[in-house]
């Protein structure tokens, strides 16, 4: 590791950056320096302003006030080209790769003037290969990006930045999509980069990672820089407190009292969905009064499992029972009728209809039930009353049931969905990434509701990429990898590292691959 002298050269300086979106101040007078050979961890809750700040730094947004300086040169605002040319490379949370092109093509995209006749495939390949060796990033340059795993895609993103001779690497939540082992590889790459003189800004909210890799911590809260400290001089509890602004209370989880199995899968397989694997010979029981957690890196079959239980997918083989019966004509409608409450992975794309008002969204799953409609005629009065009840009962902050849902915050949107599915007293709750992108208040609320549903006797399946969330809430944990499901582990039976082995797919014996 290089040492971090305070007198090491400042490579990047943010000065008084302020950005407002309407009434919201996303960044409020933020200033800090990044020195050569340093890894700064930028910590903050969802919505604290990290991503906005990085978008300004990279030129996607123009700040209302303040400026960015790289190697002493002030960057023109709102110009990604200038940021790239100055040596700032960014690895976005959502990859910016074209699936229909090869790794090499993605890397060289935009590096040459568009009017040049060729893109110098041979030289490009040489440089890429040598970069891969220097930084320990392995990936086939001629593979189509569409066929790569998430971890490989991230390597391509990093290579893209290095190919452009980035001196400053910004990694936006890079570990959210990685197994613990892949995370270690990423950290090895980061250490090599620092040793070669680069500087890194690492955005995360996972404290143990921050402790492991960073030399300095910058904490944002509600758009303000609230703390800056050397990593060595602080600890996890202190960082957590800086992030949230108060002591973080872990949810109190009482012992579960599991009942009968409400959903049973035995040897279930489903077809692959594009590049995402389907289920491979999966055994699973969801018991009443118990939270079953599903850990795993995203894109390993979670979608297939959620879609199967949620009614969007049918099993290709194996037995799938709901409350002891093999459902016929399995569909979303059938799942709802069977008492399965579904909290979808993406509340914007599948959970709600943005241009519908709250009333219309509240009855989205229920409109065909007696009470809300009769002989094909809607009963809007009943629908409005239902929406009003949810708004009150689940603390949805909004002007009223006539508000279009696109104007609500993610947390309030999620509360409406929660209300919609929990009001019908479901016996099974399928929660797929239920707190993704929520602030701490909404997150706690959702977790409390899930625990309450469990205590009422519902069988809860919690799917999350956040291992900490899964281990905190679940009574029983399964790990999913490449569509295969681990046996159930009781709470606390495995350490995070041991779970990581399963997440990487290494715990499975020669599991029989059902076609």
């Amino acid at each position, binding site marked *: 590791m290089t040492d971090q002298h305070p007198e090491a050269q400042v490579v990047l300086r943010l000065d008084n950056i302020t950005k407002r979106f309407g009434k919201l101040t996303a960044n409020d007078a933020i200033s800090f320096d990044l020195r050569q050979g340093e890894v700064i961890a930028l910590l903050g809750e969802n919505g604290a302003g990290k991503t906005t700040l990085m978008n300004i730094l990279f030129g996607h947004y123009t700040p209302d006030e303040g400026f960015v300086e790289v190697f002493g040169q002030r960057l023109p605002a709102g110009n990604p080209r200038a940021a790239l040319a100055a040596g700032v490379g960014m690895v976005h949370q959502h990859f910016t790769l074209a699936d229909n092109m090869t790794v090499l093509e993605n890397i060289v995209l935009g590096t040459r003037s568009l009017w040049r006749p060729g893109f110098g495939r041979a030289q490009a390949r040489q440089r890429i290969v040598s970069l891969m060796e220097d930084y320990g990033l392995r990936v086939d340059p001629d593979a189509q990006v569409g066929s790569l795993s998430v971890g490989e895609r991230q390597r391509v993103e990093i290579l893209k930045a290095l190919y452009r001779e980035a001196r400053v690497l910004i990694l936006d939540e890079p570990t959210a999509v990685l197994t613990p082992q892949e995370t270690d590889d990423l950290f090895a790459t980061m250490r090599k980069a620092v040793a070669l003189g680069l500087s890194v800004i690492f955005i995360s909210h996972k404290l143990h990672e921050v402790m492991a890799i960073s030399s300095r911590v910058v904490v944002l809260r509600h758009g303000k820089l609230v703390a800056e400290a050397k990593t060595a001089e602080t600890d996890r509890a202190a960082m957590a407190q800086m992030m949230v602004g108060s002591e973080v209370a872990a949810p109190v989880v009482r012992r579960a009292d599991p009942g009968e199995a409400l959903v049973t899968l035995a040897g279930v397989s489903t077809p692959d969905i594009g590049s995402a694997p389907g289920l491979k010979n999966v055994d699973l029981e969801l018991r009443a009064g118990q939270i079953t957690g599903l850990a795993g890196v995203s894109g390993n079959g979670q979608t297939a499992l959620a879609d199967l239980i949620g009614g969007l997918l049918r099993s290709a083989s194996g037995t799938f029972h709901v409350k002891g019966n093999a459902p016929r004509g399995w569909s979303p409608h059938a799942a709802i009728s069977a008492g399965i409450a579904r909290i979808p992975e993406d509340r914007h794309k599948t959970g*709600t209809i943005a*241009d519908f008002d709250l009333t219309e969204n509240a009855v989205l799953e229920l409109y065909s039930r007696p009470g809300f409609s009769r002989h094909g005629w809607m009963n809007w009065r009943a629908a409005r009353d239902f929406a009003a009840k949810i708004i009150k009962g689940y603390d949805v902050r909004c002007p009223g049931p006539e508000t279009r849902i696109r104007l609500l915050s993610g947390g309030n949107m999620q509360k409406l969905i929660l209300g919609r599915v929990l009001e019908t007293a479901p016996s099974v709750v399928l929660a797929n990434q239920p707190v993704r992108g929520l602030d701490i208040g909404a997150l706690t609320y959702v977790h409390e509701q899930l625990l309450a549903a469990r205590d009422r006797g519902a069988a809860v399946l919690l799917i999350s990429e956040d291992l900490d969330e899964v281990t905190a809430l679940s009574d029983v944990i399964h790990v999913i990898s490449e569509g295969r499901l681990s046996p159930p582990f009781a709470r606390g039976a495995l350490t995070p590292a041991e779970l990581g082995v399963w997440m990487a797919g290494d715990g499975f014996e020669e599991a029989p691959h059902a076609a």
Partner: protein
Amino acid sequence: MRLEPIANPTWTRSLGLPALALFATVVVASLLAMVAGAQPFSVLGLIVKGAFGSKFATLETLNRATPLIFTGLAVAVAFRAKLWNIGAEAQLYMGAVVTVVLGTGALAWPAFALLPTIAVAAMLAGAVVLLVPTFLKTRFGVDEVVTTLLLNFVVLLWVSMLLEGSLKDPMGLGWPKSARLIAEARLPRMVDGLRLHWGFGLALISAIVVWVIQRRTTLGYEMRAVGLNPAAARFAGIPVNRVLIKTALLSGGLAALAGFSEVAGLKGSLTLDISPGFGYTGIIVAMLALLNPLGVVVAALFVAGIFVGADSMSRAAGVPTYLADIMLALALLAMVLAIMLTKFRVRRD
């Protein structure tokens, strides 16, 4: 630049921008009329006068609006569910063919039984034409824009074949024209002595029915949900494909009523030129009406007025009638832009 949603657009914005769009259309059309050597404002005056200047002109406009209300409704219904039905022209001709097949003596029923029968049969035929592309969309994922467009050509050629073959009027002196409908199959006039047939009344009733369906029924709710976000609709248990098929039935049926009303109400027989593109113009009508069924009536009157007015203006001022089509195309493009700008603000980053 970047687009930023506006939470609560002001009244001036919601009304001013569409008004500005229409104004811009008029300005450009005036300039084009000047190019043709006419006085710009007199051209506009002539159009208005030609459309609504006399009882005769007004009735002509109402008659012209009738098929446009039907095709406009057909498009509005389909587009609301994001079913891109560009095939109203074909569905219209199907309705017309059925009207001729059943109305030229095949069924010797009294009018009160015959007319509803023909109307329903025509609607079914139109619906079938749209079902084919809809099925290809739901089953194979084939884009319905292209298939409905291509089917227009197929159906028109088929009608041409019929008019030179089995449907040809033996008394027609060799013209590709069908026999005339029997009296019981003709739509009566709405008011004695006025040249306005009940097709117009049927169009108004249809607009109200469609409005009620969209606002008050589960089908209307489902159609809007499917149109706005099919993934969310499917997730919520709405049978997306079934809704699309019901939408196609309704949309194709409405477009077919245009053919029924033109043949049974206005022309009395079928020729290849009963529709000067009513099916395509229905798209403009629907867009100008913002897909609102009641708005379709107003928009159809506006569009019909421009067509009728441009015809008489052309005779008087010597400006080609194509000015009417240009105005409509401009109005369409300017209007969709204006509507978008009422909901979004343009920002420099």
